[in-house]
């Protein structure tokens, strides 16, 4: 979808076109889901954020700026909502004096990848098992399209730290997907 389509979609949304809303949802739900699933590492929470992002879009449709970049708008909203959830998780863990976040689903036993779907499944599990800060960098860079500098500003860490997290994350993913033991 190019920027002209986005502008048209925003115009239709502002005018209260329900069909346009459904089209926008179909077009961008995958991008939003990829971002928040990677950030959160939990599917059910990712679906909740997906719900909140699009309901929020619907609520604010009449006030959308006519030249809004719809994809950027949705991904920014999604990243903010996912961050809020992560913060709440941290607070909840602190309040309960609980152990750190439980590890994500364990990587599957090393086995030969027999199909693309299986490979995709393995990759999703590998992503979910990454530490939170690495997942965030992967999500914002790969799915959010943010530069390392932008991510560093948002996460309040240095650009070098962000690059290191990204490198470690990819390395770990590669290891997990190829079935190497950690």
């Amino acid at each position, binding site marked *: 979808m190019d920027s002209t389509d986005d502008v048209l979609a925003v115009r239709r949304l502002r005018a209260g076109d329900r069909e346009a809303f459904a089209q926008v949802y179909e077009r961008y739900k995958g991008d939003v889901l990829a971002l928040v699933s990677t950030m959160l590492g939990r599917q059910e929470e990712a679906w909740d954020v997906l719900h909140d992002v699009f309901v929020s879009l619907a609520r604010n449709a*009449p006030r959308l700026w006519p030249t809004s970049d719809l994809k950027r708008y949705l991904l920014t909203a999604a990243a903010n909502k996912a961050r809020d959830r992560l913060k709440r998780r941290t607070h909840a863990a602190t309040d309960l004096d609980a152990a750190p976040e439980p590890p994500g689903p364990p990587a599957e036993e090393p086995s030969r990848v027999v199909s693309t779907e299986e490979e995709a499944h393995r990759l999703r599990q590998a992503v979910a098992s990454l530490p939170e800060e690495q997942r965030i960098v992967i999500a914002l860079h790969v799915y959010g399209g943010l530069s390392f500098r932008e991510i560093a500003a948002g996460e309040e860490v240095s650009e070098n730290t962000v690059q290191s997290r990204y490198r470690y994350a990819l390395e770990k993913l590669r290891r997990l997907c190829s079935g190497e033991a950690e």
Partner: protein
Amino acid sequence: MKNDHDMEEALKRLVWSAPPEVDRRVLSDAQAAFDHAARRHSLFRAVGLVALAATVLAVAAGTILFVSRRPPIHESSPEIVRSRAGQAVPQNGDLALALSLVRLNAMASDPQRLLDYLDSQSRPLRTTEAMMTPLTSLSGVRI
């Protein structure tokens, strides 16, 4: 996956989807929010239009009130008389005489007031040629 680039590509190719019930819930709740927002937006727009109309009316009423309360020309200060008389008052010459004549012109329909006014005036008005003009023709006097 041989290198970082391959891994990035694999991540980008990953398809993330939600179950149909999630889609239905999102669309249903979003439609409700959509309708609510549209109604609220219409209400705000209507209130805005009413406020705009009220402002325009208030400005118009103020203007009319201001214009209607402007004092008659013969009760105005010389500066206002001069500005409102426009081309009837010469730019050069005896301004005092011109202003007096404008006042006389305005009072021509009220002889008693005119006489009182003339009585109240001192020289040089009484000695001017204008005083020689019969009262009946004062309304058509030209300078």
